[in-house]
């Protein structure tokens, strides 16, 4: 038997409910790496245009869960998923799902910035080209500029668009990767520890960027930095041993969580 769907609207009695619709709904998810079960019976609804953070100790399944949301785990041999994941009501594991199209709609940014060994311009233009999203050079340049601006890096790179992306600092590379993800106009942005390899100033810029981006995107971020989750997210889900322990508005999770386990984790008593 699966647990009922956990959503902000059912968990926030007496508090302001999110006024955005559910974007992603997961029910009864089990996930296996071979014989090892990594996720047990996860049911959760994520709202559009909010930042939702997944927190929990290493190995709790939060990254695995993030990667189920654009079927990134498909590329790992021996993995198996049970349950359903719907985006805008449509099951992404159902037959007829075009995984390439899914990943265009659900972009991803990783822990370690991974720009292509190409120019700054080409990094952002690449996805536009292979998806035929620009019909001519002028449009391509416009979309590249727009994406770099949205990722708050335009001012730093506009005079050297054709320099190698690998010459940028770590924080700039990460923002370039965000620009690259934004260029193909996804609806959802998954971020797996996007700032964990960055210094505090670069981290702050990424966090501020995340805050700005939620106007246009639904953002899901995995972080083992609890303070970061507190700063950037609207909703927080706490994972432990492959299960979803608690999910609610971030301020509740960090000021008055319902579960003892969550309280012990956010107060640093374990984890």
């Amino acid at each position, binding site marked *: 038997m699966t647990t009922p769907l956990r959503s902000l609207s059912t968990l926030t009695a007496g508090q302001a409910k999110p006024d955005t619709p559910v974007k992603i709904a997961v029910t009864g998810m089990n996930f296996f790496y071979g014989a090892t079960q990594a996720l047990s019976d996860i049911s959760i609804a994520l709202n559009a245009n909010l930042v939702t953070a997944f927190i929990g100790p290493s190995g709790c399944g939060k990254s695995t869960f993030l990667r189920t949301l654009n079927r990134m785990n498909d590329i790992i041999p021996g993995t198996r998923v049970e349950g359903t994941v719907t985006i805008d009501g449509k099951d992404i594991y159902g037959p007829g799902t075009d995984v390439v199209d899914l990943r265009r709609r659900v972009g991803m940014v990783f822990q370690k910035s991974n720009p292509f060994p190409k120019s700054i311009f080409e990094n952002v233009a690449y996805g536009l080209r292979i998806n035929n999203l620009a019909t001519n050079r002028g449009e391509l340049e416009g979309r590249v500029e727009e994406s770099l601006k949205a990722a708050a890096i335009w001012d*730093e790179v506009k005079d050297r668009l054709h320099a190698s992306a690998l010459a940028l600092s770590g924080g700039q590379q990460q923002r370039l990767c965000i620009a690259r993800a934004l260029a193909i106009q996804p609806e959802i942005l998954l971020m797996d520890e996007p700032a964990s390899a960055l210094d505090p100033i670069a981290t*702050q810029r990424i966090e501020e960027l995340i805050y700005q981006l939620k106007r246009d995107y639904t953002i899901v971020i995995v972080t083992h930095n609890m303070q970061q989750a507190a700063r950037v997210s609207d909703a927080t889900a706490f994972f432990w041993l492959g299960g979803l322990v608690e999910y609610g508005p971030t*301020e509740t999770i960090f000021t008055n969580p319902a579960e003892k386990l969550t309280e012990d984790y956010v107060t640093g008593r374990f984890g």
Partner: protein
Amino acid sequence: MERHVRHFQEELDELKGRLLEMGGLAEDRLRLAVRGLVERDGPLVEKVLVGDAAINQLHIDIDDRCFKLLALHQPMAVDLRAIVAAVKINTDLERVGDLAVNISEAVRRYLQHPPVKELIDIPRMAELAQDMLRDALDAFVRRDPELAQHVLTQDDALDELKTAVFRELLGYMLRDSATIEPALDLILISRHLERIGDHATNVAEDVIFMVSAKDVRHQ
């Protein structure tokens, strides 16, 4: 690199705005209560007595904001001191609002008697207390430790006026027992005004702590 404003900073500014709003309300209520006394305007005093809800609401709202900012943003250095100061200033301003109510209650009783004397020192005390409160809040907004220091030096004048009011009214009460009741209310009012000065002093001390991290209390 373009200046990039953190949304935390916006929330901090919003918090300061709320505190100022609260300070303004407390100051208004004090002014009305004392005007009611000087002009013997009963209905005006009644207005002060019923109008505490806005301040009480802000009291809760400001504490809630501080709590969330501390919990969610882990502020450091001057930001941390600003929020701790805001929590304390919030309490002081709420007390000023309560004292305005206490003054109004005393004025209401006082107005049931003929005037004991022409009021000179009490309006002066009220003006001084309002100045101190306004200066303390200005110092908070402008992060101005000198203005805050100026507030601290004014507190002695207020204390002296309170003592003078007491001595003078004691004389009236000794001469004419019919004045005891209204004179006691005037003494109470002067005591409330002196307490408002103490709260303004607390606010000024918190401002100095916020700006320079120096604790100047109890010196």
